[in-house]
C-alpha cells in the first residue's frame, strides 16, 4: 500500500475524530497539522521546508488588514447592543405598526433588518426581541409559535445582511473582495426580508387569529399612527427621489450626498408642524435617525467603494460610542465589557483560522487538495450535482456545528471543489452564506433557539420555539434556490 496516497484520508479521519472529541476546534486542527507535518517529514513524504513555511503563514494572518474588520464590527455591535438602539426601535415600530393585523410581526422583521445592518450580532437581536417584542405579542394574543418564529427568522438576518462577520470570514477564505461579497449579499438579503414580509402578510390575511391587531386600549397614541407611518414613508421617497435627481444631474458623489441631505432637511421643515403635533412621529424619527446614519456611515461607504471594510468598521465603532454616549448608556463598565468580549472573540476566531491554516498547509503538502478535488469532480451531475451535495452537506452540518466551524474547516475544502469545477467563488460563497443562516435555527444546536429559550417567558414551550422556526428555515431555503437560479443577475449586479 502506498503510504503517500493513504495520508490525506488518514489526516481527514483524524481531524473528524479530534473535532468530535469536543476539545477546542482551533487546537484539534492545529495539532492535526503539526503532528502529521512532522510525521510526513519523518516518512519522507514532503521536504522539511514545507513546515518551515508555517511561521510565515501565521504572519500572513497577522498582517491581514481585512481581518481587522472582525474586531471592529464586533465591538461596534456590542456597544450598539448596550446603547438602547434595539429597544427604542422595537418600541416605536411596534406602536407604529401595531394597529395593523400582523403589524407587530412586521415591525419585528423591519427592526431585525435594521439591527442586522448595524449591530450584526444574532444573539443580541434574538435577546432584544425576545425580551421586548415577544411578551407584547403574547399579551395581545399572538400565536406563540408564530411569534417565536418571526423573532428567530428576523434575528438571523444578521448573518446575510452586511456588515456580517461571517461574510468577511467567507470572503477571506474564498479569496474574493469583501466589498463584492457585501454587494452580492444585498440580493439574498433583500429577497429574505421580502419573503418574510410576504409570509407575515399571508398569516395576517389567512390566519388572523395568529397575529391580531393591537386593541385600542394598548395604543396611547391611537389615531396618530397612520400619519406617522406615512410621514416615515415619505422620507424614503424624498431620500430616493433626491438621490435619483442627483444622479440625473450627474453631480459628483460628495455633492450628491449633500443634495440628499438638503432634500431631507427641507422635507423635515415642511413636516415640522406635524412632527410637533404627533409625538409618535417624533419618537419614530428620533429612533430611526441614529441607525440610518450609522448604516450610511459604515455600509454606504463600503458599498460605494469609498472606504475599506476595515476603515468603515473603525468609523462604526466611533459612531456607536457617540450614539451610546448620547443615549447616556456609555459607562466604564459597559465599555470594558464590550472591549473584553471583543478581544476574546477575536482571539478564538483567529485561533481557529490559525489552526485551519496549519492543517491545510500540511494537508496540501500530502496532496490532500488533489484527493478532495478527485472526490468532488467524481460526484455525479457535474456542477449542479456538486452544488446540491455541498448545500445538503452544509445544511446537515448546520444541525451540529455553527458557522465559524463551517466557514473555517469545511469551506476551504469545499472551495477546492468549486475551483476545480470552475464555479464562481463569489456566487458559491453566497450560496453557502444563505445556507449558513439555517444553522442558527436547526436543532439540536441552533444558537438562535438557545438564546430565545433563555429569554422567552415560561408560557412559551420549547417545542413552540423549535417548530416556530421551521417556516423561516423553509423561506431561507427558498432564497437559496432563488440565488442558485439568479447567478447571472447577481454577478452582473456586483460587476456594475
Amino acid at each position, binding site marked *: 500500500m502506498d503510504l503517500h496516497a493513504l495520508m490525506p484520508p488518514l489526516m481527514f479521519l483524524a481531524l473528524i475524530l479530534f473535532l468530535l472529541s469536543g476539545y477546542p476546534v482551533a487546537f484539534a486542527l492545529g495539532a492535526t497539522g*503539526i503532528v502529521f507535518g512532522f510525521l510526513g517529514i519523518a516518512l519522507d513524504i514532503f521536504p522539511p521546508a514545507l513546515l518551515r513555511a508555517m511561521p510565515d503563514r501565521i504572519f500572513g494572518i497577522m498582517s491581514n488588514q481585512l481581518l481587522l474588520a472582525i*474586531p471592529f464590527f464586533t*465591538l461596534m455591535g456590542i456597544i450598539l447592543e448596550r446603547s438602547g438602539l434595539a429597544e427604542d426601535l422595537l418600541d416605536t415600530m411596534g406602536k407604529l405598526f401595531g394597529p395593523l393585523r400582523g403589524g407587530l410581526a412586521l415591525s419585528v422583521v423591519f427592526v431585525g433588518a435594521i439591527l442586522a445592518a448595524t449591530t450584526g450580532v444574532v444573539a443580541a437581536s434574538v435577546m432584544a426581541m425576545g425580551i421586548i417584542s415577544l411578551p407584547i405579542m403574547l399579551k395581545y394574543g399572538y400565536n406563540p409559535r408564530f411569534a417565536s418564529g418571526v423573532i428567530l427568522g428576523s434575528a438571523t438576518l444578521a448573518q446575510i445582511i452586511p456588515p456580517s462577520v461571517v461574510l468577511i470570514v467567507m470572503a477571506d477564505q474564498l479569496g474574493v473582495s469583501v466589498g463584492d461579497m457585501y454587494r452580492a449579499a444585498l440580493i439574498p438579503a433583500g429577497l429574505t426580508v421580502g419573503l418574510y414580509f410576504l409570509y407575515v402578510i399571508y398569516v395576517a390575511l389567512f390566519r388572523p387569529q395568529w397575529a391580531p391587531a393591537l386593541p385600542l386600549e394598548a395604543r396611547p397614541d391611537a389615531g396618530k399612527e397612520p400619519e406617522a407611518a406615512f410621514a416615515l414613508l415619505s422620507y424614503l421617497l424624498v431620500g430616493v427621489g433626491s438621490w435619483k435627481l442627483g444622479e440625473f444631474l450627474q453631480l459628483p458623489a460628495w455633492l450628491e450626498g449633500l443634495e440628499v441631505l438638503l432634500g431631507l432637511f427641507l422635507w423635515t421643515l415642511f413636516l415640522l408642524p406635524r412632527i410637533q403635533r404627533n409625538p409618535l412621529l417624533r419618537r419614530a424619527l428620533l429612533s430611526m435617525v441614529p441607525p440610518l446614519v450609522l448604516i450610511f456611515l459604515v455600509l454606504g461607504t463600503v458599498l460605494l467603494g469609498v472606504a475599506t471594510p476595515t476603515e468603515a468598521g*473603525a468609523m462604526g465603532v466611533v459612531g456607536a460610542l457617540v450614539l451610546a454616549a448620547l443615549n447616556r448608556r456609555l459607562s466604564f463598565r459597559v465599555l470594558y465589557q464590550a472591549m473584553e468580549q471583543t478581544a476574546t472573540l477575536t482571539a478564538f476566531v483567529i485561533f481557529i483560522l490559525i489552526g485551519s491554516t496549519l492543517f491545510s498547509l500540511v494537508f496540501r503538502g500530502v496532496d490532500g487538495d488533489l484527493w478532495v478535488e478527485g472526490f468532488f469532480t467524481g460526484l455525479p451531475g457535474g456542477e449542479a450535482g456538486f452544488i446540491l451535495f455541498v448545500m445538503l452537506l452544509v445544511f446537515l452540518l448546520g444541525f451540529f456545528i455553527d458557522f465559524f466551524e463551517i466557514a473555517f474547516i469545511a469551506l476551504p475544502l469545499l472551495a477546492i471543489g468549486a475551483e476545480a469545477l470552475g464555479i464562481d467563488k463569489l456566487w458559491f460563497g453566497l450560496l453557502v452564506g444563505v445556507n449558513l443562516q439555517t444553522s442558527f435555527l436547526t436543532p439540536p444546536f441552533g444558537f438562535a433557539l438557545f438564546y430565545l429559550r433563555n429569554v422567552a417567558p415560561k408560557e412559551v414551550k420549547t417545542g413552540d420555539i423549535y417548530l416556530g422556526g421551521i417556516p423561516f428555515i423553509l423561506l431561507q431555503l427558498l432564497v437559496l434556490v432563488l440565488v442558485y437560479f439568479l447567478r447571472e443577475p447577481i454577478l452582473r449586479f456586483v460587476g456594475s
Partner: protein
Amino acid sequence: MRLLLGLAKAIDALSERVGRIIAWLALLVALLSAGNALMRYGFSYSSNAYLEAQWYMFSLIFLLGGAYALKKNAHVRIDLVYGRLSQRTQAWIDLLGTLLFLIPMALGVLYLAWPWAMTSLAVRETSPDAGGLPRWPIKLALLLGFALLALQGLSELIKRIAFLVGVYALAEEKGRGVE
C-alpha cells in the same frame, strides 16, 4: 499537588492580567484605525507606521488573547458529544486534549518559529515599506503568544488532574463570547 495548584493559580493570574491589556487594545486599535481613516480622507495623509501599528495591535490581541480565551474556556468546541458528558469525562477529554493537541501544537509552532523570529531579531528586521515599523518585535510577540498558550495549557492540565483526584472544583463557566 498544592504547589502545582499554586503554579496554576499564578499562571491564571498572568493570563487574566494579559486579558485586561488586550481588552484595551481592542478599543485602541479601533480608535487608531478611525484616526487613520479620517487622516486619509480629510487630509490625504497616511503613514505606514500608523497603518502597521493597526495590525500590530490586532496581532497582539489574538496572539496574547489565545491563552486568556483558554483560561476563560471560550475557545469554540463541537458540543455534539462533549456537551452530554459528565463533568468527569469532560475533564478527561480536556486533560488528553491539552496533552495531545494543545501543548504539541504550541510547542511545535514555537520550535518552527524560533529560528524565524531569531533571524529577524539578529538582523533587526524592519518593514519593507518606507517609514514602517521594526518587524522583529511583532515576530517575538508570536513566540510570546504561543509560550503563554503552552503555559496556560499547563495550568489547565494541573486543574484537570486536581479535579480528577478530587482536590479542586472546576468552575462550570462557559465563557463563550458573542455570535
